[in-house]
């Protein structure tokens, strides 16, 4: 068991899978000579050469589509999309091709590929470079979408994604790359499609994914320490499929829930979570499910504006407190 960063976990897993499977190769912009915009692939070009680590022109549609085509012949491309914002350019190849080929041709040809990409705001990158649009993928049957929040999950879910025979959108987050956590030497097999209860509790359920799952964890710990609140934390981990059962089970126990998400509120990932909980835990909910999400604006560059627009430990804490107040469960 070693404590490593999320970045390192990704890097090591890519490397190991490349070592064990000749069919795995990396493709993307600036992943080789430049070593990756966020340095996930540092050193891999030197180790594996240009065949296995392929720098592409700036052509998201072209190179993602090429990865889909290569996967159709049985290779296992791991494409890096520099940030999820640029993935819009490749969306037709992902939604209309990668996600459709298996079904549209009656199950004759699978598309075993991974698209790694970070989302996330809070770095003052402005409106076009700070989006959380995983919804665009989570909505699409035929795709699988995972969003690990810890180095350990990053490792096991990347492993599972590469070995999976379907196209997987693997969501990372700019602000998670430097976070640290324990990662077992032998990665456990984490199943795609399963959420995790990362902290047991009884007063309230806090649900998050990606960065906000870690914020949820921190908030829960702080509330426990400082206010004796017992919050259960659920990390979605998989956005498609969505593990409704785990969510509902938790809320049937706690009777209330707060969802923390980095994307915009209306139609965001949390909308489905709230809808599912309101349905599956209808008789157990003491108050409405509360959502903490980004303000619905093109995210401004200036720090005070950006800070006001994005969810944080503070806004989540407020929402949890207010939820507990509403059910009269604050001590």
């Amino acid at each position, binding site marked *: 068991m070693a404590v490593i960063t999320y970045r390192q976990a990704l890097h090591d897993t890519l490397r190991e899978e490349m070592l064990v499977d000749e069919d795995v190769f990396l493709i993307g912009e600036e992943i080789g000579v430049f070593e990756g915009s966020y340095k996930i692939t540092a050193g891999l070009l030197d180790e594996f050469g240009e065949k296995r680590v392929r720098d592409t022109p700036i052509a998201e*549609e072209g190179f993602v589509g090429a990865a889909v*085509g*290569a996967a159709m012949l049985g290779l296992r491309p791991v494409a890096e999309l520099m940030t999820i914002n640029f993935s819009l350019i490749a969306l037709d190849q992902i939604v209309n091709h990668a996600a459709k080929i298996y079904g549209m*041709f009656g199950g004759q040809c699978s598309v075993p590929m991974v698209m790694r990409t970070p989302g996330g705001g809070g770095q003052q990158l402005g409106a076009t470079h700070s989006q959380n649009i995983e919804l665009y993928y989570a909505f699409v049957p035929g795709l699988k979408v995972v969003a690990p929040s810890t180095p350990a999950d990053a490792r096991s879910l990347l492993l599972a994604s590469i070995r999976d025979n379907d196209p997987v959108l693997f969501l990372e987050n700019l602000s998670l790359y430097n976070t640290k956590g324990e990662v077992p030497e032998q990665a456990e097999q984490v199943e795609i499609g399963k959420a995790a209860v990362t902290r047991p509790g009884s007063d309230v359920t806090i649900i998050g994914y990606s960065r906000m799952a870690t914020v949820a964890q921190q908030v829960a710990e702080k509330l426990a320490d400082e206010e004796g609140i017992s919050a259960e934390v659920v990390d979605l981990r998989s956005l498609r499929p969505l593990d409704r059962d785990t969510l509902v089970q938790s809320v049937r126990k706690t009777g209330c829930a707060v969802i923390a998400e980095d994307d915009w509120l209306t139609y965001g990932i949390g909308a489905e979570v709230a809808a599912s909980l309101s349905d599956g835990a209808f008789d157990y909910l003491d108050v409405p499910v509360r959502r903490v999400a980004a303000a619905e604006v093109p995210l401004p560059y200036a720090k005070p504006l950006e800070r006001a627009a994005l969810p944080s430990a503070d806004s989540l804490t407020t929402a949890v407190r207010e939820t507990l107040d509403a059910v009269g469960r604050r001590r």
Partner: protein
Amino acid sequence: MAETATRSKSASSSGSSKTRRAGTRSGGNRSQRRASEVFPGESPQTLCDYYRQMALIRRFEERAAQGYTQAKIGGYCHLNLGEEATVVGLMSTLRSDDYLFTNYREHGYAIAKGIEPGRVMAELYGRSTGTSKGWGGSMHMFDVESGLLGGYGIVGGQVPLATGAALAIDYRSGDQVVMCQMGDGTTNIGSFHESLNIAALWNLPVVFVVVNNHLGMGTTVDKSSAESELYKRAVAYRMHGERVDGNDVVAVREASSRLVERARETGQPAMLETVSHRLKGHSVVDPGKYRSQESVEAAREADPVAAFRAQLISAEVLDEDGAVEIERQAEASADAAVAFADDSPHPNPETLFDYTYATPVANDSRRLPADPVF
């Protein structure tokens, strides 16, 4: 960059060694002498086989149009009428383990690549025996065995995929070639540009074939492409490009064979533009009112099936009876395809959730519209 070719009979500068060229039978009789003047180096058998295939595609497409009108076929239905020489010429140059990606106008390609016409018609009829088990329809045929890696309905969608398939061949040092068919209008979309650049940059064995039928749906090439000699666009990628008369099956075969074998041997991609006409509307429902009388006339006059038939007869490769016999057989095959399709079972609605994922996954939704979530 080659100039417009009408019929390049000379062998290509590279790659001819592996070309599957039909041997010339230097026969002693008059008709073979005559044939070898009009079609030097071609065996009558090969020529007849081309005609057989072209006639079959013609009849097949006519049946498809009928089936559509009878509401046996749904969705959109785009026909290869007028493109038979191109289709047959191109397909004759691919090995069965070479890969083909096409657009949605692909019935003829599917047949000429080696799929049973019955399975192609069954796909149009949406039956389980179809090339895509009824999941794809007219626009989305697929067959692993014959190497048809898909017809695609999104304009330009197949181009990055084909490039990626060529990348996989290169990755595995295979000797297959990918052919990527598309229409003239497709050269204006971004994926075309991105893919040709990538293919040239990485030296991938893919031949991009632009079937120039002068029209997108109703928009002419002149109104959509600033460089209307489309093959010249290859120059933006330092790629070889050339143009050939798409109504001439032998010319298409020659050009395609040269570029396919060049790709096979050197890995170099190329672009081939074939020029022909769309005989009917964009799809079966389109009356084509926007077309000028001349354009329609020109198309009819250039009809590659009729023209090739006349050539074969004048070259005495075939006589009228022989031609009629081939057409009769084509008709019989097309009818058999219809019968096969009509007799085939519809997919069972219970299979609805069978092809969402290749690897089963926890919590996959298998809800019908009336089912509650919980």
